[in-house]
């Protein structure tokens, strides 16, 4: 260890002469690091990243000789990366693509999608303008040249009948123009190279023999219902995709015109047929290929395996077909890749929980070959084990093992179905009410870039909603509120079910004084016009008596909620009163001594044809007594008589007994009392 005499010199060096200090630090890096870490924890006083790197490396190799590299090269963005590592996510801000202004911040999931898509629409409008008028955007200021800010060529340049023109059309994805050019080339008699014909076939089969529509990406966005439907049919009958592969196809025609057909041509055609729903044709094309003694490639086998569940219904037949394809694959010495295994597992997941052992054996084989499984692999295994319908098995062992294995791994997206992993995993945790497992899943989300695999706003809102429900059910309220502050509103917006879970959690932990804050959240999340939510909120508030400050805050909320029901501006969309909500609001107002407003509420009862409860009127009478307003008491009894309540007589008796009334009032009350008697 360092002797005490050396320490002061180190301090003065560092403070006074930075350069000399740096030199000293470099020389005594090992001693300094251990020393300073003891004293100051891990604070770094202006150490450059290079020095800290060297010091850290030196510390690790304390048992071996220190090897200081002669030169260390950094990437271009090393400084930016170091700066970025100091900043973490701001939980109070909305997504950074939105402007930082309250008018322009999205408050609900719908607004988030709307704003993001409208911004994207603006960009596409500008892109269209830029690409159709490239002559205004060709002047190049940028040094070095930035290719992504130049206009893209969307119009065809070459018009003559040549292979270059064909290549250009293929590159610009103009399907019909490419087919016409090819036909013209054939008529002219020029031979088209094999490479170009491969690409042409790929193009036609990918786009299904029609030009790609411009707004097709946007069309997929508003298909949330489509996605919901797709989810439901996962475990049911395989979806019947409409067969849009035309019978008299350009692809098949050109295929037949080719002088020689090799694997790649067959691959393009088979994959196109699978994509557009012509499954039987795909299989027959496959057998034709085998008859011509050609070997398939991995893409063909992947496509055919994905077809299996759509053409076979029973589990045995499906598995037999898959096995047959896999044996052929191994016979032809085609190496499987990640997608092969994923497709097999996907088909098995539709077979149900009977395929568990097979699924696990496939996973082990995958690892034995050396292909790293992606999240989609694990998703399919989860689907195999945890079918939604059966509630019998709640054994989450498989998920526990999975989380143990995946801990700390960071993933990239290799399969489109990777995004369903976290949603499925957290659903299993929610159903089995396993909080520890939920935390493990959340920690996996927080590793590195794994948040990208949460999917789009819809999928990630599902994940966070389920995680939040799990927390509300199982965790202490303080922890729940901490997670709430962390995730809302930067990562997701809770729906009304989430807010109800939150209120339940508050109720369980007896923190009902937090309810006014929940009301504020309801207002900011724009859930104000959901009557179920409002009624639950009010009934929770009105259930028990609380301390005066809390009662006061409840009364303020009650008044605001009343305004929601009675607001004149959006009278068409106002929720309708129920007698429960009316009574509850009146009770809250009474408890906070807002008598005048409570009286106004009574008038609302009549207006909405709802009957107040007996307890409410009893409370009113007591309040009148404390206020000593006998006139009010008489009005109250008359009101109850107009509602033909049973307690009229009791109220009248009480009023006569407790108040000092004028003769007139006595007369009215005795009349009401006696009127009530024969009915009893």
């Amino acid at each position, binding site marked *: 260890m360092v002797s005490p005499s050396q320490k002061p010199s180190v301090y003065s060096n560092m403070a006074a002469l930075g350069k000399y200090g740096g030199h000293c630090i470099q020389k005594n890096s090992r001693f300094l690091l251990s020393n300073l870490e003891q004293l100051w924890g891990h604070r770094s006083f202006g150490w450059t990243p290079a020095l800290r790197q060297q010091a850290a490396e030196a510390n690790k190799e304390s048992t071996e000789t220190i090897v200081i590299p002669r030169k260390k090269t950094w990437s271009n963005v090393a400084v930016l990366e170091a700066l970025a590592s100091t900043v973490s996510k701001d939980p109070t801000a909305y997504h950074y693509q939105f402007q930082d202004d309250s*008018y322009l911040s999205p408050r609900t999931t719908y607004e988030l999608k*709307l704003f993001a898509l409208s*911004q994207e629409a*603006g*960009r596409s409008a*500008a892109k269209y*303008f830029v690409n159709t008028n490239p002559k205004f955007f060709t002047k190049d*200021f940028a040094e070095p040249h930035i290719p992504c800010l130049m206009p893209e060529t969307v119009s065809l340049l070459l018009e003559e009948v040549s292979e270059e023109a064909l290549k250009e059309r293929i590159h610009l994805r103009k399907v019909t123009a490419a087919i016409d050019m090819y036909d013209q080339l054939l008529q002219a008699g020029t031979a088209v190279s094999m490479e170009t014909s491969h690409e042409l076939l790929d193009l036609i089969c990918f786009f299904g023999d029609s030009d790609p529509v411009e707004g097709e990406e946007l069309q997929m966005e508003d298909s949330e219902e489509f996605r919901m439907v797709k989810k439901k049919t996962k475990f049911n009958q395989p979806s019947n995709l409409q067969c849009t592969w035309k019978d008299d196809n350009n692809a098949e025609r050109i295929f037949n015109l080719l002088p020689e057909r090799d694997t790649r041509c067959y691959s393009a055609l088979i994959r196109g047929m699978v994509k557009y729903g012509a499954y039987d044709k795909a299989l027959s094309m496959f057998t034709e290929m085998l008859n011509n003694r050609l070997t398939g490639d991995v893409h063909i086998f992947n496509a055919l395996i994905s077809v299996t569940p759509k053409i076979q219904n029973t589990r045995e037949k499906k598995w037999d077909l898959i096995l047959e394809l896999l044996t052929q694959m191994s016979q032809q010495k085609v190496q499987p890749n990640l997608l092969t295994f994923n497709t097999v597992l996907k088909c098995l997941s539709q077979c149900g929980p009977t395929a568990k052992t097979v699924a696990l054996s496939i996973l082990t084989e995958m690892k034995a070959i050396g292909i790293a499984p992606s999240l989609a692999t694990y998703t399919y295994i989860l689907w195999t084990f945890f079918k939604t319908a059966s509630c019998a098995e709640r054994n989450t062992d498989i998920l526990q093992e999975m989380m143990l294995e995946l801990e700390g791994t960071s993933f990239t997206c290799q399969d489109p179905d990777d995004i369903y992993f976290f949603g499925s995993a957290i659903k299993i945790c929610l159903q089995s009410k396993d909080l520890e497992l939920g935390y493990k899943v959340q920690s996996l989300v927080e590793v590195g870039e794994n948040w990208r695999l949460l999917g789009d706003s819809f999928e990630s809102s599902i994940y966070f909603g389920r995680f939040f429900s799990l927390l509300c059910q199982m965790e202490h309220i303080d922890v729940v509120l901490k997670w709430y502050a962390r995730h809302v509103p930067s990562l997701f917006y809770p729906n009304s079910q989430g807010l109800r879970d939150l209120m339940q959690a508050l109720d369980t932990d007896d923190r009902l004084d937090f309810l006014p804050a929940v009301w504020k959240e309801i207002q900011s999340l724009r859930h104000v016009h959901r009557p179920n939510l409002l009624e639950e909120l009010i009934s929770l508030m009105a259930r028990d008596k609380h301390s005066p400050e809390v009662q006061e805050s409840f009364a303020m909320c009650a008044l605001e909620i009343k305004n929601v029901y009675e607001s004149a501006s959006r009278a068409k969309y106002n929720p309708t009163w129920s007698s429960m909500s009316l009574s509850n609001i009146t009770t809250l107002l009474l408890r906070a001594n807002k008598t005048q407003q409570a009286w106004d509420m009574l008038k609302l009862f009549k207006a909405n044809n709802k009957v107040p409860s007996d307890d409410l009127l009893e409370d009113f009478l007591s309040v009148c007594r404390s206020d000593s307003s006998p006139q009010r008491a008489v009005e109250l009894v008359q009101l109850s008589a107009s509602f033909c309540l049973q307690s009229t007589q009791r109220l009248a008796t009480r009023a006569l007994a407790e108040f000092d009334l004028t003769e007139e009032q006595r007369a009215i009350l005795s009349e009401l009392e006696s009127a009530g008697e024969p009915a009893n």
Partner: protein
Amino acid sequence: MAASLSSRGVVRLLGALAKSASLCSSSGGRALHVTAACCKNRAARVRVGKGDRPLTYEEAHHPHDIGHRKGWLSQNTSNLKGEGGAADRTMEDVFIRRFMFGTFYGCLGNELVIKRRGNMLIVCALILHKLPPAKMYFLIGYSEYLLSHFYKCPVKLDIQTLTSKAVYKYL
């Protein structure tokens, strides 16, 4: 703002021309002299009127207050010693102001502030609540993309919204 000013300036130039032409005819042999010195007394100054014209802080203060009570609307380093491209930056700024004035027509609450930081162009605008937020985002995405492709550098819009123009005084 700039559009109206230039039309007034044109009127003044024509007036100066007419005056000098009349002088020419009477005394004979006077050269045509269109002076800029006259315009310095009229530039960016709103004259006192009846008291019903609302002015923002920016409009109410005169150009000699820049650096004292006003800041700069265009912030770049091209005017420092040894730096070049001042004229290009000015032209770019003029174009950007007209472009934004037209794109967000009727919604701009005040002059734009244009900052150049690194290779980025940051356009700070005060926008009124005339449009719903979705339409504003459409225009924001459109302007950012178009200006980036025009100037070959990242252009960011920094929008702050107001319910109405911030009136400083009435003249």
